[in-house]
């Protein structure tokens, strides 16, 4: 099907884009377009105006400052996957990007587009949740910061107003040499996650876990941080049994509200029970893998 008619705008600066977003009715920012353009084709979405952000170089960067990683919203997934800096300081981002989409979609796809689209299967949302990321959104009236835990307003809708736009993601870096793992279950390699899990871990030097962060995506409309499992593991000397016990806590978390449970094919054909089972299995696997890397 052809895309419904829209008016195209291509600003070259953030203030110009924000002004358009403020002024125009039903305007939608266009980032990499790897999800939005298919939605337009299917007419799942239809907008009177598209504001193309691809000509705004100031939104594309990746840097570190005071122990924080800062990534501009229009930074391409491929750029992050091929970045030597990211490989060194935040390898789990590349673990996730490696199983996210395909070579050609990562060339165009951006981190900010992925987070703003807020698909419950979005791997980058999961990685952001693992790091307690802060999302900086701007409008022509000012800017504010949103915690990643508050990012989801509802199914596929971030808590941004119509005139706001995500400009930067930042998170605190983990110490050098930390353990990391990200694995996902999908219908085919690199496809939308049915369930995925990520883990970050540090070793105290004496055989115990010093710090741990765990997430599962695919259980609900936003990533599920396994806070109970994190508490269970902190300060303990891990064993296979301990990881298995901690992973069991996945089963207590809420699944999608019923009205969304069947929306989108990663969910439609997979029962809630099977998703919980996968969550438990994948959480256990990434805990084990992250620990192996933490003690290397």
């Amino acid at each position, binding site marked *: 099907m*052809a*895309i419904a*008619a*829209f*008016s*195209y705008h*291509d600003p070259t600066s953030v203030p110009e884009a924000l002004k358009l977003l403020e002024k125009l009715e039903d305007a939608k920012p266009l980032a990499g*377009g*790897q999800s939005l*353009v*298919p939605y337009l*084709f*299917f007419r799942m979405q239809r907008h*009177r*105006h598209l504001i*193309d952000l*691809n000509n705004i170089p100031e939104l594309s960067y990746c840097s570190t400052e005071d122990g924080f990683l800062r990534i501009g919203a229009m930074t391409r997934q*491929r750029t992050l996957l091929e970045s030597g800096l990211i490989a060194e300081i935040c390898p789990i981002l590349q673990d996730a990007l490696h199983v996210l*989409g*395909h*070579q*050609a*979609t990562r*060339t*165009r796809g951006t981190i900010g587009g992925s987070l703003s689209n807020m698909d419950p299967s979005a791997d980058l949302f999961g990685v952001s949740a693992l790091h307690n990321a802060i999302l900086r959104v701007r409008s022509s009236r000012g800017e504010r910061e949103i915690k990643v835990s508050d990012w989801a307003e509802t199914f596929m809708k971030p808590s941004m107003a119509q005139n706001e736009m995500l400009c930067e993601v930042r998170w605190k870096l983990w110490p050098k040499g930390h353990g990391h793992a990200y694995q996902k279950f999908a219908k*085919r*390699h*690199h496809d939308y996650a049915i369930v995925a899990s990520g883990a970050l871990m540090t070793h105290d030097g004496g055989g115990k876990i010093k710090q741990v962060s765990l997430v599962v995506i695919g259980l609900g409309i936003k990533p599920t941080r396994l806070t109970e499992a994190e508490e269970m593991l902190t300060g303990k000397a891990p064993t296979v049994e301990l990881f298995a016990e901690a992973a069991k806590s996945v089963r207590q978390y809420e699944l999608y509200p019923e009205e969304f449970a069947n929306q989108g094919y990663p969910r439609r054909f997979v029962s809630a029970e099977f998703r919980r089972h996968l969550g438990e299995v994948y959480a256990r696997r990434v805990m084990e893998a992250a620990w192996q890397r933490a003690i290397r």
Partner: protein
Amino acid sequence: MDRAIADAQLAKTENPEATRVVTLTVNGAPHSAETTTRTTLAIFLREDLRLTGTHIGCAHGVCGACTVMMDGESVRSCLMFAVQAHGHDILTVEGLSNKGELAPLQACFRAHHALQCGFCTPGFLMTLTDFLRHNPNPTESEVRQALTGNLCRCTGYKNIVAAALDAAKQMRANAAAA
């Protein structure tokens, strides 16, 4: 608001059928054509520039048949608007051969019988051209992962993977000889 009313208002106050002159380089040659801003790059290449080597399979980013390279990196030309390629450098399957001589990757596709109907082939060639430039000595598993974004309904992929590995070997030999 009722959709029909919205559409009527849209027609009055906005100009969704606005056209732009898109100027870009395709396979080393400059091209320029006027097109509507909602025309995808894939349709622009095929219908405005009459470069029909780029195929449109699913037209929503799943099958990979429309893959082309922009500024040296593979992209889905059905998920971009032509206006977004303005000023950029595009390589399509028509640009792979050199004065009628097949590129090593194309010759390997022929030698290994890596196509049957051939519909998906332009996309596979462009994906692999990008991949092999960045990874000249891949493992079979890496080739298979690079090809996850391209669907072929005929071959079962086995011969495509064999052709890619053989092409990588020949290209390494050519590079060493040069």
